[in-house]
């Protein structure tokens, strides 16, 4: 997973220089670097020839974008309604304790970020936890550690 990351120029060149691609570019940069750095904000603003404040407001408005670096593993605990009434908050508490961070935070070693999301479209299997691309359904209390470990192992 430590493939070399594409440079910002390599990403930009794949998009036409028009304002309507700003969200798509930001999403691509987020995916590559796990956040939008100040330098990259500047680079995008130059490339699209629109004020950096516009790019900044996009980056802060849309939930999937972040100005702070996210961990290698992003653990998302679904707190959509279906998950909520099947006890997602207890699952969340457990994950918090296992990682020793709160939602929206990243572990000091940069390995895990914890997020709460609203419905990932797998409600029939509520409560749901996602680690990067892997879905875990019908999460029972006491399973948090297992899930976290299995994600890490899958990558090793």
């Amino acid at each position: 997973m430590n493939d070399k990351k594409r440079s910002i120029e390599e990403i930009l060149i794949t998009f036409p220089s028009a304002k309507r691609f700003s969200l798509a570019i930001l999403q691509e940069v987020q995916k590559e670097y796990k956040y939008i750095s100040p330098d990259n904000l500047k680079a995008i603003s130059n490339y699209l020839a629109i004020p950096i404040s516009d790019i900044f407001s996009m980056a802060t408005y849309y939930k999937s974008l972040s100005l702070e670096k996210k961990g290698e593993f992003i653990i998302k605990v679904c707190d959509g309604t279906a998950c909520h009434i099947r006890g997602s908050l207890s699952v969340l508490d457990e994950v918090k304790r296992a990682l020793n961070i709160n939602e929206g935070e990243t572990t000091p070693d940069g390995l895990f970020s914890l997020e709460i999301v609203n419905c990932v479209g797998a409600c029939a299997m509520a409560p749901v936890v996602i680690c990067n691309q892997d879905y875990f359904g019908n999460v029972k209390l006491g399973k948090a550690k297992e899930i976290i470990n299995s994600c890490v192992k899958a990558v090793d």
Partner: protein
Amino acid sequence: MTKKILVCCGTGCLANGSQALVDQFYLETKKLDVNIIPQIKETGCNGFCENGPMVTIVPAHITYYKVQPKDVSDILESLDKEPVTRLLYKDDSGKPVTSKEENPFYALQHKIVLRNTGVIDPSCFNDYLEAGGYVGLTKALAMEPIKIIEEVEKSGLRGRGGGGFSTGLKWRSCHEITGEFKYMLCNGDEGDPGAFMDRSIMEGDPHSVLEGLIIGAYAIGSHYGFLYIRDEYGLALKHMQKAIDDAKANGYLGNNILGSGFNFSCEIVRGGGAFVCGESSALMASIEGRVGEPRVKYIRSVEKGLFDSPTVLSNVESLANIPYIMTNGAENFASIGTKGSKGTKVFSLVGNVNRTGLIEVPMGITLRQLIFQIGGGIPNGKKFKAAQTGGPSGGCIPEELLDLEIDFDSLKEKGSIMGSGGIIVMDENTCMVELARYYMKFLTEESCGKCTPCREGLRAMLDILTRICEGKGELSDLDLLEELAYVTSEASLCELGKTAPNPVLSSLKYFRDEYLAHIVDKRCPAGVCPKLIKYEIIPDKCKFCGLCVKVCPVEAITGKPKTPYIINQNKCIRCGNCKSTCAFEAIYVE
């Protein structure tokens, strides 16, 4: 006829390991005699994800549930013999059923939108054609655009994205406006937390959405379109893109579609993850590369929408109905449903119900049928309390209204809305006050903040609801809630703010006594609100097994050998681990 093995590869079944299953099928069928090798197909979601991975054998129509790679050899061996009984679904009397139609989850369903989902391989263009795909488009392209609009109007189709506005009428108003550039958009943002209809349609039958979009574009006179799809919906994005590419390669998109002289192309825009971006003007702002904030309503998108051009936005499910209507005729479609709501509706039936999943039923079915026949009732012998429809913009429907025939108008009359089709079933252990707080929190976070009533009003309501859940509420809070609800719904700019008070108002209407219990008795009758409950061990039932001690994360439980254990209330964080672990039901919530 070659046998086909349909392996469900929707998001749910993939999560349950259906990819490994597909691999195993390929591996083991290789060993078979070439003349009898069945065809293996990866399909979209069958709706019953909780019992996945699902495997269906055609033409025998045998469906297996929770299939694991180790079951593959038994299934292959049984192909010309009796089905593998242990993998069949057992109906409510415990009898194994072979076909889907005999499964109570499917028995009452009527599939129009999901006609191909779970049956065809969504990434295979020919599968769609063989299933009758693009017949509707071919028919439409031979018609005058206004005739298509008349047909859609006659069908009675109302928008499935939440508003329930007549699709035909919307198309007509855009058709009547002259403009060189018009845009045809598809709304695949699906932000309602607890609903996944559109996801499954896009994943399982992307061409039907695309075909609907092309027909719509031809009807209104548009040559370019966008599909706005949530970025989190990886598989839906992949399948929609493949559908667009294949349609282009086969002459169903691009210039001179099927030799008709009509040109239309489209592209996908990935959503940024904001609930309000599902609102039409916010969605258009987002496609233009701006922050997704709604604008005032008096500017109509059919006149001045995307890039200030006339624009029609239709929801995924609305569009997936269009090819069916064009192929089978408006009368056929209008013969299903109620007086004011025609056709079917896809619902995601989730929450505290035995059989959860995605279902498609005729409009006018009752909640009782949905929850007790299709859903098989409430798990663990608990009591039904209410069902929430319409998500954060809707309301709850209590037990006394279970026989309500659901359609757009009946739900509205009872203080809820149809919304996009989420039905969340709640049992006696769901706290209605906490649920109202939950929705308010969701909406407070999702409010774009452009207008004051929504930004501040929701926050104020959230504060009050939080206070009540923590046992700090006062009786006057209820009047204040109602007052705030009134102002917010009257004065907010967009529907997010206008409908935000619905969950609070409807639960106040039907479950006022629960609010009173929190405020007056400082008690949470459902046993949910952490500040108002405590976990206790019933000494007579405790068998000193010590399991609860192991699972308690804060070491709040202590005990000596052979004496009942005790929970230290000062340490307890009310996580519920102990209660869910205890095999003797010795722990109760108060």
